[in-house]
């Protein structure tokens, strides 16, 4: 039986379990003239669970492991000289066998045909065993659970315990993700730092992963001084914040304090649209329109600008993060209680005085956290810079020059057809680690700042 068929059958069992469980609880309660501890459907849920979920888990587990077990079994029965092949070649071979099996056409040499035959037999056997185990488990689960049904059984509590464990599992995925992130960058980075000195990486001012500068450089084919990348990242982020903070904050203030409801109804979603536009679109816009425009503008002012200046990317990125600042600020400003405003107006303050002296200070923690969020967005932002900033790693603070960023280099290093464990690929993971840590630190700072302000005025 195929996966789909078994799955469908299990779902049917689930429904069956629900109804029998329900029915049995009701009839037992009638027969013994005893009040049910829980509602009938709780008994139903319980039976439904035991009659399908364990079987389902086995099914999934089996399906995940099946292919690798079968593959290794096939490899094991291949002639010895074939087993000597490299992993890649073996994989190709196995793929070929599987494809042959699927196509059902008996072509190829004897070894392959034999392998295909063997493969088919294995698959058949596996299917058979899988179906038997799954269904036996499902029925055992159902009958044992049914046998346990008694009016005084605390079915609701049991069901609720199951639900709770499921939810704990879901919540824990966040931790797994973080562990996954750390593990996926840390191992590769360690290998990378075996090849490239950590300090060279952090403080080296020359980034050119393509060519070797020193002949004796071990394992590497270029130099990996990431400082220009980080400086470039910060430069572009800084430009972005210079654009976004005043525009976002003032927009938020105008919208929440001054604008008429109708204007607000129109302007707020329009501003929020800025955040909804995919970054790749901004990138395209920056590359195709803004960068040439700025270059032309610079030329007309007598400045010579690269068409991939940090300024262009920064401006567009700034526009992109305006809503992060304005939306969050708007929320916190609106959350400042009307009483606060009334208090100030009643003292004879004008609107702007009220805003500047009462509302902004009250909303400051929220505004700061909005700005920090925007900053971490800017630092981690990829597509705009990939498309609008250059690849040349200049160590400069001049926004008119072309710079490159961490994320740009990561993309550049990983989207080629390099081998998975070349130093260049590994460098990307090291950059990823650096990026992860930078935003982590920024995050912690923002939390700390917010908490400190909160403590003071709340």
């Amino acid at each position, binding site marked *: 039986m195929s996966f789909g068929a078994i799955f469908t059958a299990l779902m049917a069992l689930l429904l069956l379990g629900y109804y029998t469980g329900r029915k049995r609880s009701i009839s037992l309660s009638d027969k013994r003239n005893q009040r049910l501890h829980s509602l009938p459907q709780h008994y139903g849920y319980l039976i439904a669970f035991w009659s399908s979920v364990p079987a389902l888990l086995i099914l999934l587990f089996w399906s995940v492991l099946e292919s690798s077990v079968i593959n290794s079994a096939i490899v094991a029965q291949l002639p010895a000289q074939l087993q000597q092949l490299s992993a890649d070649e073996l994989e190709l071979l196995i793929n070929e066998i599987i494809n042959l099996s699927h196509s059902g056409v008996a072509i190829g040499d004897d070894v392959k045909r034999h392998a295909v035959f063997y493969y088919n037999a294995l698959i058949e056997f596996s299917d058979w065993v899988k179906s038997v185990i799954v269904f036996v488990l499902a029925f055992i689960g159902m009958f044992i659970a049914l046998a346990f049904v008694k009016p005084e059984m605390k079915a609701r509590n049991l069901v609720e315990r199951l639900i*709770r464990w499921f939810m704990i599992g879901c919540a824990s*995925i966040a931790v797994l993700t973080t562990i996954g992130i750390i593990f996926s960058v840390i191992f590769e980075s360690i290998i990378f730092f075996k090849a490239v000195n950590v300090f060279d990486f952090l403080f080296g001012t020359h980034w050119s992963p393509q060519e070797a500068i020193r002949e004796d450089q071990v394992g590497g084919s270029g130099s990996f001084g990431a400082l220009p990348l980080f400086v470039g990242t910060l430069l572009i982020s800084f430009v972005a914040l210079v654009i976004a903070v005043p525009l976002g904050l003032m927009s938020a203030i105008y919208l929440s304090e001054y604008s008429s409801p109708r204007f607000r109804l129109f302007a707020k979603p329009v501003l929020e649209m800025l955040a909804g536009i995919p*970054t790749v679109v901004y990138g395209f816009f920056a590359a195709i329109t803004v960068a040439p425009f700025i270059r032309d503008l610079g030329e007309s002012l007598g400045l010579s600008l690269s068409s991939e200046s940090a300024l262009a990317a920064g401006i567009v990125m700034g526009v992109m993060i305006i809503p992060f600042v304005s939306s969050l600020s708007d929320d916190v400003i609106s959350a400042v209680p009307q009483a606060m405003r009334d208090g100030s107006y009643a003292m004879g303050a004008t609107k702007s005085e009220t*805003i500047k002296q009462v509302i902004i200070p009250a909303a400051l923690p929220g505004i700061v956290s909005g700005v920090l969020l925007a900053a971490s967005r800017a630092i981690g932002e990829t597509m705009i810079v990939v498309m609008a900033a250059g690849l040349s790693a200049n160590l400069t603070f001049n926004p008119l020059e072309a710079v490159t960023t961490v994320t740009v280099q*990561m993309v550049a290093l990983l989207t080629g057809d390099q081998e998975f464990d070349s130093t260049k690929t590994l460098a990307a993971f090291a950059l990823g680690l650096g990026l992860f840590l930078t935003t982590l630190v920024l995050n912690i700072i923002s939390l700390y700042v917010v908490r400190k302000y909160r403590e003071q005025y709340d």
Partner: protein
Amino acid sequence: MISNTKKIKNKLAKRYAKEKRFQIYGLGAIVISIAFLLSLLINISTTGFPAFQQTYINIDVDIDSKLLNLDGKYSEQALFSANYRKVINQSLKTLFPGVEDRRQKRALRQLISKSARYQLRDFVMNNPDTINTKQSLWFLARDDVDVFMKGSIDRSLPESDRRLKNFQLVWIDKLLTENRLEKRFNINFFTQGDSREPEQAGIKGAMIGSLLTMLVTVLLSFPIGVSAAIYLEEFAPKNNRWVDIIEININNLAAVPSIVFGLLGLAVFIGFFGVPRSIPLIGGLVLTLMTLPTIIISSRAALKAVPPSIREAALGLGASRVQTTFHHVVPAAMPGILTGTIIGMAQALGETAPLLMIGMVAFIADVPQGITDPSTVLPVQIYLWSDSPERAFTERTSAAIMVLLGFLIVMNLLATIMRRKFEKKR
């Protein structure tokens, strides 16, 4: 001593001037932001609109079985592998007799899309009785012709700076006078996969890829995210080490750059589990992990906004914790949860960087059939096309952006409508 009132009066004019200035700054900020948005939208749509049209060239084709190399066998196999190129070249020659120069001959062939032969093949295979007849057929024009037709090539430029040479222009003028050039709605754009030839390139592959990826994402992230949010908000014990760790993690993940999730997918799913690259399943998994924090955080906010009095009311009536949560709290929070989810999905739909990492950037011309077929997605398609130098790709990039934005707008509308509906029900 002057009276208070007088003191206050003296300062008033200055204070009001400040007030006025402040207000102007605020309005200015909004105007600038909106102006930027508008210029972006206008720019994209003016470049993108032409892509919805495509130039076709009319040629009288002499479907000669000899030229086709058919040898009288009209089997499907034979028709499939017949030499249609020759037929088309011959027809072009008849249309423009006197083109002898090899360079010019090649230029002549390049008026018409490389795909013309497939077009012809499909035509002949569908109508085998047309063999050995003359047919007047419309073929896709080459991108250069197309671009010229849309007015983006300036005749006045010196010939060397132009994609079309002078003699090509003459031919085009001739075709024009004979009404053999025509712009039609570019249906291919929506029904074809990617292609190296701009005039053939379509977004169907990317759209289906996006759809499959989103399907995986929403099926995983919604239940998991909402369950996690419910657990953390309603059940998690306070002052529990594990819960604290989970919370810190979620908050942190929300701010982790998306490209890092790409690294995660690359290292864990592809590197460790050995799942193939470029498939929507992996894309969906990565995007799930990326959107989970968004969904969890907004769902928690929605749950938190449910007044505790509702919980107390249900508990006071003898409902259990789980019943209280699922009967009252979650329904009340549903609008917020759904909006959060849709926003998360919209984010995922527009996301590019992590997908680049897991290889969805590969050139894939076929439309994917399932979540394990290699595919690309809309934003990545946009990225790919934006990298291509041809003017026609620029056009198509903008058009693809318009399609993507269209989807996003629909999703946001959906979020608003859903929220309204739920709020009314309450």
